[in-house]
């Protein structure tokens, strides 16, 4: 029998309720970093020609206002009035990492229940979104550096009892 039934529903009563689906593995060479944060889909896209250069791309949830510039804050030549290839690549990689449903839900894009990256991009393009300034680029780039810095943090062999709340999961939430 199950003890502990009351006013809360099932998901509400589990200490181990799964809130986030695990990210899915993907190749990182083209888009080393992508995230759904600060009300935007944002990421860093490697330049095809210059190994020392990256593009910082973003699309805002709801308005689909987009921006793309280099890490040295030069505007992207491709993002003139429409999504550049960096943004399109970023959307596809976000779909690989998070699943299309989560990406579409976060961006508030109305598409099929099981959209593709391409369908999400087309649905946003069709609204003729405005091009934003590159104001967010510095924030996104510093988020990327923060993300990379996780590789440099020291391990510990002291126990972390709180990690008991974070089991692996194969379940898609």
């Amino acid at each position, binding site marked *: 029998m199950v003890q502990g039934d009351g006013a809360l529903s099932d998901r509400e009563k589990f200490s181990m309720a799964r809130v986030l689906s695990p990210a899915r593995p993907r190749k990182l060479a083209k888009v080393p970093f992508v995230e759904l944060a600060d009300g935007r889909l944002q990421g860093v896209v490697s330049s095809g020609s210059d190994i020392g250069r990256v593009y910082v791309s973003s699309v805002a949830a709801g308005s689909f206002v987009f921006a793309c510039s280099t890490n040295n804050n030069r505007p992207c030549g491709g993002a003139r009035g429409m999504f550049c290839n960096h943004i399109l690549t970023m959307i596809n990689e976000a779909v690989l990492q998070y699943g299309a449903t989560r990406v579409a839900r976060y961006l508030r894009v109305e598409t099929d229940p099981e959209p593709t990256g391409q369908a999400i991009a087309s649905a946003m393009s069709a609204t003729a979104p405005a091009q934003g300034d590159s104001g967010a680029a510095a924030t996104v780039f510093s988020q990327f550096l923060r993300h990379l810095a996780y590789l440099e943090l020291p391990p510990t*062999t*002291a126990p*972390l009892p709180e990690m008991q709340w974070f089991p692996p999961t194969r379940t898609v939430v």
Partner: protein
Amino acid sequence: MRADLLAEPIAGLDEALAAVDGGDQALTAGLLRPQPAQVAALTGLADALAGSPLAGRVAEAVDKIAAGAAGEDHFLAVAAARTALLGSVHDALSARVDEATGRPHAEPAAPEPGAEVSPNLLAAARSWLADLARAGWRGLDHDLVSGSAPVISAMLPDPAPRRLAALLDGFAAELAASCPGAGIDQVPARRWGDLWSRALVLTLPGALGGAPGGTATGRLLPLGVDLHEHGTAAQAQVHAVLEPADGSTPRLVRASVSVPKPDTVLGAGLWQLLRPHLSLLAAAGDGRSMDVEAMPVTAEGDLVWDEERARPGAPADPFVTARVVLPTAATPPVAPLDRHPARLAVPVFLEGYTTDKDGDAIGVTVAGHRLPVDLDRVPVASPLTPAAVASSGACLGLLRWDAGTFSVQPLAVETVVKKKAVAVHAGAWAGGTTDKNGVKAEKAATDAVTVLRERAGRLLRK
């Protein structure tokens, strides 16, 4: 194991959990300007603590919250009340598990002194947690959640407050993904109440736990590997039996290793990050024992691993350990603050059961009582499949409890593959593998880390 005992009701458990639910309902709505329903729920929480040393503090906190005049100390009292109630639930469950396993439980030990952590950092964490309590889960927004980022970034480089940093990091990621709070379908109220109250209690001076007080010398017989992960952290825990060199009673111990990670390092990538710092992972994967000498150990039976104090030992089959040594091994006590049902992970050995499979759900029926199998906790990079569990005849696992139900997380099973009896271990790939799928996963993970390190090398030090 007396599995039947696990199905019997526990006196007072429903009442304690109902009081916890009350606190969680109030936290869902927010404590800034609580409605009468939330005040009533909080009063229920306070009433449940009547007669305990916390009673006065909690009652006062509820009054202040009801008057819209609560501060951090009052939120802390709510967190402490919740922690105490779930502590009592833990104790009742733990006593029941002891009856079921028939194994001895060691006496509680004196608490060890806490780690030194910057008071400013702890205060900053507390301040963010208080903001969360005021807004409630329904009031979550991106600005509120991102307030945790500077605290976490400042805390992560120092291993001393890593418990709190890893908790806040995983918690904040869940909150961020759930914004705005008003749009959440079903708030995971118990879970976030747990994470919030634990984090808040850990900001108290001395709560983080400190240097281990004892040492262990003897033979370590691994039972299996338990993996924990969220987007930006991973921890592996090896459960083992320690046979002390002085001939005293064998006891259950754990050895842990954890590391922060980018969220794109996954699957086999976790083993790659963890394995260089805990040789016991490879030993557990290969079915070998290890000998330890003066290895630091906490009162809770957590070895704080130091490679200098360990060397490889003779082969040791975990199933032999489970059959021969485990039944007499003593369970170490739990630190007062760590008493929570989610913390129960008790090594058990099951055999002579039948299995049932319905879609993804598998259960084992032991002596007439069914236990659900928690397959979701098996690492992604592991050869232990649902099919192997469904066809198994013996299982070494961790007994867990959540939302009213015991379940068993498989660490290893004995099954028959191509007419041959084999053991399949959840942590078999922890130390590396020659399995075809395992090798592929290792290669993909290596590539991901190589790209990130290359990018970090070019961009991070500019």
